[in-house]
């Protein structure tokens, strides 16, 4: 390490971060052991495991945005999505595996927001991995009790005339919010509309972007 600056700050003025040299945790060791056993016993190959990780990393909120944009532009698809979220996503050729999806729709009078108080259930087979805050104890405990305050901290202030529906994802279903279609988008293509649909708008902690 150079000697002409503080030991605590890098030349660019940021604190040095400790290297992650700590020993493996119990569960990290368990994960490695199970993975190696699966490979040694011929249940899976390393390539298959990597392909699964790649497939999960390839999923992103952009997939959900396409589903929402189609629901905004295709009334028959919207009906199918509300009736059976999983089948509607499969119809669009998204590889969602065993995901059991319920789509809930924001309207002029109703705003939906999704939380999992028990753990961190999230429709990751459609939207990719959950944001870190979604798994935080604070988001999980406060959203069921003071959703309006939580939403206002996300920059979403709802009038008292709008009813909030909180969905606690406690068991087998996963949820996606169909945000309200922004004003001023009449005649837009689904492709253009999809760019307005954010991850947070599909969790309910945000609104779709306005043009």
């Amino acid at each position: 390490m150079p000697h002409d600056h503080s030991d605590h700050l890098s030349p660019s003025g940021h604190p040095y971060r400790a290297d992650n040299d700590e020993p493996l945790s119990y569960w990290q060791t368990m994960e490695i052991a199970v993975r190696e056993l699966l490979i040694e016993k011929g249940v899976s190959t390393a390539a298959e495991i990597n392909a699964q990780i790649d497939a999960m990393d390839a999923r992103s909120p952009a997939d959900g945005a396409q589903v929402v944009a189609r629901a905004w532009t295709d009334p028959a698809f919207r009906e199918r999505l509300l009736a059976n979220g999983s089948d509607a996503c499969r119809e669009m050729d998204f590889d969602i595996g065993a995901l059991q999806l319920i789509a809930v729709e924001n309207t002029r009078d109703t705003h939906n927001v999704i939380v999992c108080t028990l753990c961190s259930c999230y429709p990751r087979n459609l939207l990719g991995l959950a944001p870190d805050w979604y798994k935080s104890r604070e988001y999980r405990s406060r959203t069921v009790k003071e959703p309006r305050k939580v939403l206002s901290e996300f920059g979403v202030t709802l009038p008292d005339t709008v009813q909030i529906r909180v969905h606690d994802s406690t068991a087998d279903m996963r949820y996606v919010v169909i945000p309200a279609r922004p004003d001023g988008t009449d005649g837009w293509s689904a492709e253009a509309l999809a760019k307005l649909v954010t991850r947070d708008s599909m969790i309910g902690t945000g609104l779709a972007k306005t043009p």
Partner: protein
Amino acid sequence: MATPMGKPPVAKPQRVRVKTMMPPGHIRTPAYLRGKTGWIERQLGPFGNPEQLAYGLPGEELTLYRVRFSMAEIWGDQAERPEDTLDAEIYEHWLEPV
């Protein structure tokens, strides 16, 4: 026949209460809803009982209900806006008719 994705809500909502039992183990019924009364939003399942599946046991197939509660029912005077609602999925053996 029950479908995994549920049925449309019935005309007259059926009121149910979440049992107040506190068994140990892998439970998918949040403690803050125990003893609370809501109404069935839709019926789902059947799904294997997670309280058995979590321990490698064959899970008994159970009906899962989406139950809707008012915030007033859950939080009483502390509700942020009493008319707001919360939906949760509750397995049939946790519900009793009201």
